[in-house]
């Protein structure tokens, strides 16, 4: 028997970002024992980096807002591939989830009448994002973390889950190692919630931290759960492009929300040149109207810089390819220009966008109150993920729940900014609630000792190879190059087929990684183990993207540039087949009920 210690909980939560913490709070309220596992220290998960805000139709800044508008905006943004029920629940419950944070100590920016202030963001019809300057993610994670630590939730920090365990087809626990010492731990549980976040690290240029290796996606996939919408990756239009070491780091959409404009090297506001028909009625007809919109004029329509992210990213890509880019291969994002409009614009910008000011000052030696920034697209978010039941967040494996970025459905083909943080608290809560309910109604699970041993022994193989084998960092870098160049913002079938060939070759190399030294805090070893996950999700992205022979939302095919009706009613789904290969199929979208169709129609004008 491979050496390990064992823990046991009713509900085990994997991930301590917004979704995992919110699930932990709700599960603990459900009166069951709760364990929480995360790869980093508590409070450091990716959620901490979120900037702009969280979307909830509280109507504090514009009383025309309500759940119906938010629902319709989300569906339009997702090009109607969203799970309608998730979009409905999300729009209806987000306001309460945001408000309750205040009772746990969150301190949002205020409106003049003392309520939670809401800001404009791309694709949202009215100012809807509750925010704290541009550090909303920090506020969210710290509030949830500080609330959780008093609830008796057992936190296992700096532990990485390497495999899920099943008992007769039902989730039964996980195998993990602690990063500090490299010791193995087995956690048995009656219900497991995956809240592991995204997979940006499959790409070379990304806003994601090292944690974003698609672990939850891959863990669920390996035990037979279904993943949908994996072709939909969000490339955020504005990442830093210079200096090289910070390439990909996010520049919040809030910059555009506060009046920042995009320009090419000829000084042209190129976003005015390409406004999709279905957004024309809501888009400003000239710069002056756009500016008034950003300053809260309710009669004005939004500037084209605030169109959906997929569109803005492609427009930037086009400018750069056409030779109209900035010196370091991006375009210009200018907020400094508002000095023409606002007295003391310098102080204004620093107050509205403090961490952007700080980030550019410290990392690029650039003062955004005086000069334009250089920005370009960066891999940001995955719409695809574990297929779940809309109400309970249970996956296709009984007792296995998923919430947050690793779950799919709410966003369809493209996520609106701000809809992730609200997704985390709405569906994190639901996952915790239903996981606790599931656990209360069930007996203990049995641990599959054979599976535990296999997981542990196979993860130690890289040490056995000593120094004859592959360098894991090198394989990771090669995979990132492959995904960046062949399955990126603009895709073609032939390039993606080439990517699949390369992924197969990388799989062979990944099975032959070697590391030496001790197991304590060994990044090389950790990277070797992450590769399995990165390769699985990369394959899922490429296969799904090949099958969707059209362009929609975050998925753009140069060889099929139009939307095709045949694909408007299906999600791509991947699943592991009995022989271990990846099986792809199309699953029909659940039909939208009439009362919601009516909502969509009424909001179209």
């Amino acid at each position, binding site marked *: 028997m491979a050496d390990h210690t064992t823990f046991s909980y009713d509900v085990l939560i994997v991930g301590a970002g917004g979704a995992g913490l919110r699930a932990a709070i709700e599960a603990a309220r459900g009166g069951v024992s709760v364990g929480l596992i995360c790869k980093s220290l508590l409070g450091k998960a990716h959620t901490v980096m979120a900037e702009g805000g969280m979307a909830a139709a509280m109507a504090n800044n514009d009383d025309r807002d309500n759940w119906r508008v938010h629902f319709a905006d989300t569906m339009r943004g997702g090009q109607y591939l969203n799970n309608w029920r998730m979009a409905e629940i999300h729009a209806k419950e987000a306001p309460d989830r945001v408000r309750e944070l205040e009772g746990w*100590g969150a*301190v949002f920016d205020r409106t003049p009448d003392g309520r939670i202030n809401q800001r404009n963001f791309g694709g949202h019809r009215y100012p809807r994002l509750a925010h704290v300057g541009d550090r909303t993610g920090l506020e969210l994670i710290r509030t949830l973390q500080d*609330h959780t630590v008093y609830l008796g939730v057992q936190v296992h920090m700096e532990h990485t889950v390497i495999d899920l365990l099943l008992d007769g087809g039902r989730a039964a626990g996980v195998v993990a190692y602690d990063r500090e010492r490299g010791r193995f731990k087995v956690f048995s549980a009656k219900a497991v919630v995956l809240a592991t976040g995204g997979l940006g690290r499959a790409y070379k240029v990304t806003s994601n931290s090292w944690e974003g290796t698609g672990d939850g996606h891959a863990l669920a996939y390996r035990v037979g759960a279904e993943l949908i919408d994996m072709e939909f990756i969000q490339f955020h239009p504005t990442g830093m492009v210079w200096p090289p070491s910070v390439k990909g780091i996010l520049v919040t959409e809030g910059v555009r929300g506060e009046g920042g404009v995009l320009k090419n090297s000829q000084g042209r506001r190129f976003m005015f040149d390409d406004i999709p028909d279905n957004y024309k009625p809501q888009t400003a007809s000239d710069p002056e109207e756009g500016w008034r919109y950003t300053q809260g004029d309710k009669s004005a329509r939004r500037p084209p810089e605030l169109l959906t992210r997929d569109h803005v990213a492609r427009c930037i890509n086009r400018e750069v390819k056409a030779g109209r880019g900035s010196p370091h291969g991006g375009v210009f994002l200018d907020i400094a220009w508002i000095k023409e409009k606002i007295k003391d614009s310098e102080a204004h910008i620093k107050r509205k966008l403090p961490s952007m000011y700080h980030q550019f000052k410290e990392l690029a030696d650039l003062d955004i109150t005086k000069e334009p920034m250089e920005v370009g697209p960066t891999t940001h978010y995955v719409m695809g993920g574990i297929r779940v039941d809309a109400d309970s967040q249970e996956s296709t494996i009984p007792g296995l729940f998923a919430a947050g970025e690793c779950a799919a459905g709410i966003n369809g083909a493209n996520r609106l900014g701000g809809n992730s943080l609200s997704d985390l608290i709405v569906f994190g809560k639901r996952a915790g609630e239903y996981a606790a309910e599931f656990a209360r109604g069930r007996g203990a699970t049995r641990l599959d000792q054979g599976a535990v041993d296999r997981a542990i022994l196979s993860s130690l193989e890289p040490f056995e190879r000593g120094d004859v084998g592959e360098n894991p960092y090198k394989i990771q870098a090669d995979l990132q190059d492959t995904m960046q160049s062949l399955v990126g913002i603009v895709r073609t079938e032939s390039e993606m087929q080439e990517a699949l060939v390369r992924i197969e070759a990388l799989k062979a190399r990944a099975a032959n990684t070697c590391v030496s030294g001790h197991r304590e805090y060994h990044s090389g070893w950790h990277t070797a183990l992450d590769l399995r996950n990165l390769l699985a999700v990369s394959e899922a992205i490429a296969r799904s993207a090949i099958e969707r022979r059209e362009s929609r939302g975050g998925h753009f095919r140069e060889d099929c540039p139009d939307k095709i009706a045949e694909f408007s009613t299906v999600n791509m789904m991947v699943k592991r087949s009995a022989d271990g290969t990846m099986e792809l199929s199309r699953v029909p979208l659940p039909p939208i009920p009439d009362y919601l169709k009516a909502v969509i129609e009424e909001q179209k004008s």
Partner: protein
Amino acid sequence: MATATFKLWRTRTDGDGAFQPYQTEISDGMVVLDVVHKIQAEQAPDLAVRWNCKAGKCGSCSAEINGKPRLMCMTRLSQVNLNEPVTVEPMRAFPSIKDLVTDVSWNMRVKQTIQKFAPRPADAPDGTWRMAQKDVDRVQEFRKCIECFLCQDVCHVLRDHNKHDEFIGPRFFVYAANLEMNPIDTADRVPDLKDKHNIGYCNITKCCTKVCPEHIHITDNAIIPLKERVVDRFYDPVSKLLRTVTGPRRQVP
């Protein structure tokens, strides 16, 4: 391409350690964390280092660079002297785990000893409160804290006098101040600050404020006002007398 020498702290299996020099290529715009990662990828795959955001937002990559507590991801090479070897070592006020990584779990335990947030009943039927921006500006300053623990690392009460059992350190005075000054909070943490958390040990050297990467005015805005509350409550005879009449609680509007 230019090269530079970095001396990174490496621990041995017996727990002790030493600086080990690495020569590496550097390029324009790099930060210290980039260099550490480059060394890790090319020369020392088992080098231990914590990081997450690489943008000064998560507070994971705290270390001492040329002896100064800093975030590795926010220290550009243009800010250090590259003509001499640059030393990078872990925070010294916490137990070492491996190489640049320290055990900061003490901080998590300390937080739980501070009375949690206790809001007054909601002001509005939807469960929310009304607060003016100017009344929350100060609290928002404290809430910028990214829990990098660099302030804990420099505070002599912890670093030199090892008062970890008696003294919560600057980070948690910031945390307590954030709760105490929240306009809707009703709990009273002043007695604990005096007796349990020993705010009196702080002699306002301001070392913590100097290293805070979020530029929080730890001493002026958090510690000194809290000290004043302690003094008002326990040492000022007039307010003491008043309180026996009005009760120990802060008045809630």
